[in-house]
C-alpha cells in the first residue's frame, strides 16, 4: 500500500468486514431489506450511498470548524439532502425504470442511519481526506452486504441475475426447471432478506469469534 498508509487503508477495509455497518453495527437495515430483491437495484443503491456518503463526509469535514454545534444536525441534513436529490435526479434521467423500482428508498437515503452516523462520528472530527476514505469504506461495507443479499435473493427468488435467466426458463421448463426445480417465492419477500442478513451475521461471527458479545 504505497498509496495509503496502514491507518488510512484500515478506514476503508475495516467497515468491509469486522466493523460492517449492517452486520456489526446493525444500521441501515430497512433499505437492505426493502430493495434487495433484485441484484441491479442493490448495486445502484450501493453506488448511490457510496457517492452520497463519500462526498457528504468530505463536505461536512471541510465545514467542521465553522458549523455551530447546536445546528449541526440541520446542516448535515441539508448536505445529505442536496446529494440525495442529485442522485435521484440522475437516476430519473438515465435509469427511469430502476428509479421506479427503488422508489422512495433513494429519498430515504437521507434518513439512513449509516450516513448521519458517519457524519457525527467521523467527519466532524477528522480531515477531508480521511473522512472521504471513511465514507467510501462504510458505504462500501453497506453495499457489499446489499449485493450479497441481492445476489441470493434474485438467484433463488427469480432464477435470474441482473435480469438474465441463469437457471433456465421457468415457463418453457428449460435448464434446472426441466427437472422440477421451482423459484422460491419466499425469497422475494422482505422477511427472507432479514433471514439472509441474519445468516451472514451468523457466518461472520462463527469465522471470527472475537465479534461475539459476552452475555
Amino acid at each position, binding site marked *: 500500500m504505497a498509496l495509503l498508509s496502514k491507518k488510512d487503508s484500515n478506514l476503508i477495509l475495516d467497515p468491509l468486514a469486522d466493523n460492517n455497518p449492517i452486520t456489526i453495527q446493525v444500521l441501515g437495515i430497512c433499505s437492505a431489506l426493502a430493495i434487495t430483491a433484485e441484484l441491479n437495484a442493490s448495486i445502484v443503491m450501493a453506488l448511490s450511498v457510496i457517492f452520497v456518503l463519500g462526498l457528504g463526509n468530505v463536505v461536512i469535514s471541510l465545514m467542521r470548524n465553522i458549523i455551530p454545534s447546536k445546528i449541526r444536525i440541520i446542516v448535515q441534513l441539508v448536505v445529505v439532502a442536496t446529494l440525495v436529490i442529485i442522485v435521484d435526479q440522475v437516476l430519473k434521467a438515465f435509469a427511469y425504470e430502476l428509479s421506479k423500482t427503488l422508489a422512495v428508498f433513494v429519498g430515504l437515503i437521507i434518513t439512513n442511519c449509516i450516513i448521519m452516523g458517519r457524519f457525527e462520528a467521523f467527519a466532524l472530527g477528522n480531515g477531508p481526506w480521511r473522512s472521504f476514505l471513511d465514507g467510501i469504506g462504510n458505504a462500501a461495507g453497506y453495499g457489499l452486504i446489499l449485493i450479497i443479499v441481492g445476489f441470493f435473493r434474485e438467484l433463488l427468488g427469480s432464477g435470474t441475475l441482473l435480469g438474465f435467466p441463469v437457471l433456465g426458463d421457468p415457463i418453457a421448463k428449460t435448464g434446472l426447471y426441466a427437472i*422440477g*426445480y*421451482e423459484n*422460491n*417465492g*419466499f*425469497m422475494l*419477500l422482505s422477511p427472507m432478506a432479514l*433471514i439472509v442478513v*441474519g445468516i451472514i451475521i*451468523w457466518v461472520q461471527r462463527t469465522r471470527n469469534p472475537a465479534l461475539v458479545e459476552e452475555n
Partner: protein
Amino acid sequence: MRDKRLTFKKRLHILKHHYRGKKLAPAFNAFHTFLFSPNETTHSGAHVRAVDDLKRTMNTVIMALIPVLLFSMFNAGYQHYAAIDAASGTPRELSVWGNFLTWENFWIGITEVLPLVIVSYGVGLLIEFIFAVIKGHEVEEGYLVTGMLVPLIVPIDTPLWMLAVAVAFGVVIGKEVFGGTGMNILNPALTIRAFLFFAYPTWMSGDKVWVHQAVERAGTPDAISGETILGYLAQNRADEYAYSISDMFFGFIPGSVGETSTFLILLGGLFLIFSKIASWRIMLSAVIGALVMGLIFNGAVDAGWITESSNFYGLMSFEFWKHLIVGGLAFGIVYMATDPVTGAQTNRGKWFYGFFIGFISVMIRVFNPAYPEGVFLAILLMNVFAPTIDHYVVRGNIRRRMKRLKTATIHPKTTDEQAGKLKVETV
C-alpha cells in the same frame, strides 16, 4: 457359545464406549437411546416440567399420531379414486369396508405418504446430528414429533425436494439458531409449513393440490378436481360439494395428508389429555375461540350485513360448529397448539393462548382472499405472543399475592410503625 454372542444392544453399548469423548459420540448415543430405553431421565432444558425422559413425551405424541397416519394413507387413495369416478360422471358411494379400507387405496397412500415421512425424518435428523456433532452435545429428541407432524400437514403431492428444503430451513432457522430443542420460539413443524406456503404457493394452495395426481392431470381429458370444502366455500360454491357431515367428521374429504379425520384426531387428543402430555386447557379454549368467531360471522349473516353477493358469504354463512370438522383446525389445535415449548406455560395463560388460536384461525380462514385456511398462521402468531401472555399472567399473580399479603399482615392490631416497615419491604 451362547454367552459369547453379543446382543445388538451390547454391541451398540461397546461402540458407544469406544467413541466416548470423540466427535461422533453424540450420533452413537442418539442411535442407541432411540432404539433402547435409556436409564436416565432428561435433566436439563427450558421446557422440562417433569421427571420423565423427554422421549416418553415424544413417543406418546407419535403414538397418538399413528392412527391419523394410517387413516391418511387410505384416504389419499380413496380421494384419488373418488375424484376419478366423479370426473367420469359416476360419483362413488362411500362404504368403509367396501371401497375405503382397500389395498388399492392403501397402496397409493403408502407410495405417496411414506416418502414424505422418510424425507422429513431423514433431512431433519441429519441436521440434528450435524448440529449435535458441531456443538458437541447429545442429539436432542425434539425432531421426533416434528418429523411425524410435517408429512401430515402438507398436500399429498408436495415434491420431495421442496419438503427437504423446507425441513432444512425449518430446523435450522426455526430451531437450531435459537439453541435447539426447548429454546425455539416458533413451532418447527409450522415453520416448515409456513416456509412451504410462502416459498411455493402454487404447490400449497389452489384447487388441485389436495388430491393425488390432480395437478399432473390438469388440462388433460383425465382432469380431476382437488378442491377442498373450504375452497368451495371461499368461492361461494357451497352447493357444489357433496360431503355429508359424517364425511367431514370421519375425514373422508380432501385436504392435507393427515388433517381430515376429526374423529381420529379427537381420539388422539383424548389420549394425549389422559396421558397428561398435552394441555386440555389449550384444546378446549381453542375450540371455544373458533366457535365464538364462527358465531360472530353467522350472526353477521343473519343480521343481513353480509349478502350472497359478498365474497365472504360462503365462509361466513358456514355453520359455526362445522369449522371444527373441516380443514386443519382440529389437527392444529390438538397437535400443534399444545406444543409445550412454544405454547403458553401458565394455566391462565393457556386459556388466552388457546382462545386466540381458535378465534384468529377462523378469522383468517374467512378473510384471507388467497387461501381459505389460517390455522398455521394463527398458531405461529400466538407462539410469538405466548411469552407475553405468560409475563402478564405471572405479573398479575404477583400483584394479587402482594395485595393479599398486605391485607393479611396489616390488621388493626399492627402499629403504624410496623405497617410502614412492611410496606417498605413489600415494595
